[in-house]
């Protein structure tokens, strides 16, 4: 790994200006902290966190709707654990669970299906959150529910997709980024092609990168090589897992059940075609079609900078709430809630102690 750090230093000398790289995915943000990578890099490489934490980008309105569904008599509301603490307008799913709503943490949508099979009197709803890494398994679970005639299994989909979000960031013009570290696990499903526009239309280098320390250093090195030689390509560092075409079967099943819709991203706003909704022929699985939950217009907490953090415009410590009014114990914004949110990562791991630089 020392060799890579040396190459990175050499490349930076030849580039001879500060470089700003965005790690799109929260898993990368945390991995960069956990491996202590920031203090291995020269100071003029700035790493920015992007919008790639599904917990962080779930809108206040979607959380309020989830809370509304969980409060209906006879509903078992199932969710991935991360979503439990995310604050809606006033409450979180944790709060309403304590108040008596039947909210359960599951590790996979199949667990939710099993709950539905075991208790047919209940309407079991799965809170379908996450990017392309989770949506195929939700699609697969609906397929199973259809096959096994489990009529009391529903989903509430707030699934999102990564490429439209990056396009929106690039279109906004607010974000100054020289290159992107793209999430390896999303590309195990979608491959590299959906990112081609980043190079062809926007001239931005990107590298699909794995998650251990060596992967991340390699990804950064490959980005710097592109920048140094003035190229812009979509490269795959995580090639032991990611194929250019991704996993066509997983993409097919995702496309069979879901179609794109406009989606609201917390702090960012509506991004065209960045959400996934169930296709019309599976309406009977869509809890929004079973119950009409009317949630009043929700605003995001005042003074919270999650939006700018998610866009890479600010770093967490720029926010006036950070570490004071907003901590992992009492989060205001979603970036502080998720263990993979950038604010939570900055709070937990802190800045690298200067004495070891």
């Amino acid at each position: 790994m020392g060799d890579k750090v040396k190459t990175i230093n050499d490349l930076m000398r030849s580039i001879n200006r500060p470089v700003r790289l965005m790690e799109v995915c929260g898993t990368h943000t945390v991995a960069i902290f956990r491996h202590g990578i920031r203090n291995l890099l020269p100071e003029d490489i700035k790493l920015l966190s992007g919008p790639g934490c599904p917990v962080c980008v779930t809108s206040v309105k979607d959380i309020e709707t989830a809370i509304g569904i969980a409060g209906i008599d006879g509903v078992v509301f199932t969710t991935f654990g991360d979503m439990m603490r995310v604050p809606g307008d006033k409450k979180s799913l944790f709060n309403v669970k304590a108040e008596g709503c039947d909210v359960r943490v599951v590790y996979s949508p199949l667990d939710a299906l099993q709950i539905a099979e075991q208790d047919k009197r209940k309407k079991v709803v799965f809170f379908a959150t996450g990017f392309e890494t989770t949506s195929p398994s939700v699609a697969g679970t609906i397929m199973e529910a259809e096959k096994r005639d489990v009529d009391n299994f529903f989903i509430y989909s707030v699934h999102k997709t990564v490429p439209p979000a990056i396009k929106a960031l690039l279109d906004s013009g607010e974000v100054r980024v020289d290159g992107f570290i793209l999430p390896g696990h999303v590309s195990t499903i979608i491959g590299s092609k959906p990112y081609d526009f980043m190079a062809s239309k926007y001239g931005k280098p990107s590298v699909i990168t794995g998650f251990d320390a060596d992967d991340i250093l390699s990804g950064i090195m490959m980005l710097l090589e592109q920048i140094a030689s003035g190229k812009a390509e979509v490269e795959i560092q995580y090639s032991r897992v990611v194929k250019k075409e991704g996993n066509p079967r997983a993409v097919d099943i995702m496309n069979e059940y879901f179609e794109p819709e406009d989606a609201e991203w917390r702090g960012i706003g509506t991004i065209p075609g960045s959400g996934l909704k169930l296709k019309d022929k599976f309406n009977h699985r869509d809890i929004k079609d079973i119950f009409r939950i009317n949630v009043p217009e929700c605003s995001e907490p005042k003074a919270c900078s999650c939006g700018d953090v998610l866009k890479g415009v600010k770093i967490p410590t720029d926010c006036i709430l950070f570490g004071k009014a907003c901590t992992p114990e009492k989060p205001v914004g979603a970036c502080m809630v998720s263990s993979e949110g950038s604010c939570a990562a900055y709070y937990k791991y802190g800045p690298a102690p200067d004495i070891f630089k």
Partner: protein
Amino acid sequence: MDLIQMSHGSGGRMMHQLIKDYFAPAFDLRAFNDSAVIENISEGKIAVTTDSYVVSPYFFPGGDIGLLSVCGTVNDLSVSGAKPFYLTAGFIIEEGFPLDHLKKILGSMKAVSEEIGVKIIAGDTKVVDRGKGDGIFINTAGLGVIQKGINISPSNVRPGDRIILSGTIGNHGISIMAQRNGISFEPALLSDVRPLNRLVELMIKTTKNIHVMRDPTRGGVATTLKEIANDSGYCIMIDEETIGVNPAVKGACDLLGLDPLYIANEGILAAFVSAEDADKLLDVMKSTKEAGDAAIIGEVVETPAQTVLLKTNAGGIRIVDMLSGDQLPRIC
């Protein structure tokens, strides 16, 4: 199958039969009085601790709630420098609980307490309505004696002290989490639940310079070290490379987005010892079955005060803080 009924907890004939058939053979209850009477046990200071056990599932790979309820309390006494002598055990059992499960749990408590020479001298049983408990909850309290001259406290920690960790981390928490969620490992991953009193006795005999010991249970090694850094005022510098993590634990943590440093353990301890005795103590520990994987994982330095720093495998340095809330598995 025989099941626990409400009347098993009502104080009448059925309760007495339950005590006679199940609890008395497992414990050292002597006379059925309202309290156990202990003769003057030893010179030194008395250490007392209590802990409640609510683990679900109550049978898990490598142990059960009974074994855990004895080991947990024995270990809390041990790492305070006390030799454990007596335990009490209180049971809250849900109506409908299978009696053969109770028998198995009591059997584990009997076996381990006999093995380590600790007596369970008082007990209590309550039965709650079906749906009001999660099968079985156990509270144990323990009493031990700290011999003269033994002083285990974070205020003894000094720069230069070495930190010895007695085994690999995360086995208990991950084995439970896996069992709850139907994940299996090949080879099977077992909880590390085990009594540490004999190990500690041997350690205390080996050197007088153990400054503090802790068993990193809930919150894991990270939280334990941060507590000691806070209480002692110094910085604890640890090296990721030296901290043993079973490949199954590492794999599961990668999958679920967890950090093994924060996962619960039930059969390891961290000991802070002066540098000159560290190697000798490590050798003695490694010769035992409880601490075959022991290793020196770091040392105490002056600054930055009240901080734990980790040197990562990649060569970077990061701050290790306390766990906030629960570690929740991530979505992707």
